[in-house]
């Protein structure tokens, strides 16, 4: 935390090398978030750039009550969600959980494209089909190793919701994979 504060002070004094260091330290975190939520590869780098421009612009408002990485991840998350909203992609209209689960598992679209890939690649493909919030929670928890509390702060969701989304996301992926493994065994 003190390292964060020292780095921010230097950036606020106009030291661009320190800001470059800040970018290097957090670009993977931002790329994870944006990469998981925004599917269009052309938009991804642009959104990552916008995130860091915003970070630079708002750095004076960072109050050091949370980790710098949590604060930057919050900006990245909101930016990605806003981008998705602008593109008018549905974010949270899943309907009832059981109905949604059934639909998700039954959807066989593009399954053929995956025929030659290994099982983890299948799962990665299924992750891309998950609802946005499930993808976000899954990535922050498993890829970035964040706690439920941190994820809650970033997404403005209660911890219970974070846990629930994480459970559901993994459950959907398991069911989808199980279905695939079942059909493979029958072949």
């Amino acid at each position: 935390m003190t390292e964060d504060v020292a780095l921010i002070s230097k950036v606020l004094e106009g030291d661009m090398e320190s800001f470059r260091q800040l970018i290097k330290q957090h670009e993977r975190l931002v790329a994870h978030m944006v990469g998981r939520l925004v599917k269009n590869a052309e938009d991804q780098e642009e959104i990552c750039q916008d995130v860091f421009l915003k970070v630079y612009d708002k750095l004076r408002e960072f109050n050091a009550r949370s980790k710098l990485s949590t604060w930057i991840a919050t900006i990245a998350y909101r930016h990605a969600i806003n981008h998705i909203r602008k593109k008018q992609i549905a974010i949270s209209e899943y309907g009832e959980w059981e109905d949604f689960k059934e639909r998700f598992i039954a959807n066989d679209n593009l399954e053929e494209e995956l025929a030659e890939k290994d099982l983890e690649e299948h799962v990665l493909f299924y992750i891309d089909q998950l609802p946005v919030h499930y993808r976000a929670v899954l990535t922050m928890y498993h890829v970035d190793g964040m706690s439920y509390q941190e994820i809650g702060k970033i997404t403005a969701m209660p911890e219970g919701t974070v846990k629930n989304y994480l459970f559901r996301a993994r459950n959907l992926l398991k069911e989808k994979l199980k279905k695939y493994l079942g059909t493979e065994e029958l072949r």
Partner: protein
Amino acid sequence: MKTPDEKLQESIEQGMFESSDLDSQAYHIVFGAAKKEPLVHLSPQFSNKVINQIIEIEEKRASQKDFIWLGLGVFVLTITALVTIFLTGFKPDSGAFKFVGNYGGLLVFAALLIGLFHWVEKKVLPRHRPI
């Protein structure tokens, strides 16, 4: 009361993966894949691009500020001149004003020259070298 799936997820998370049933196997693969980083290709010059953009934005902001102060200065000067003329009843038809009035072309040239210098300073001379 926890569901079997909740218990299974918890045990795999705690590294207690022993069962060989299909659910456990599938979860094991899911947990492994979930840890993989999403594929995003940021260009190698990513940080430079961001910093160059910041410099550009800062320059635009500084330039806007310059114009605001310039405009404010001209406005205040004009108001002051008008008030002074009104209060003193001053008429620019004597002394130095009469002299300058004979060289109108020179005044226009001076104004254009100042404008040109300003344009060169803003558009031609680089303020920074791109990184």
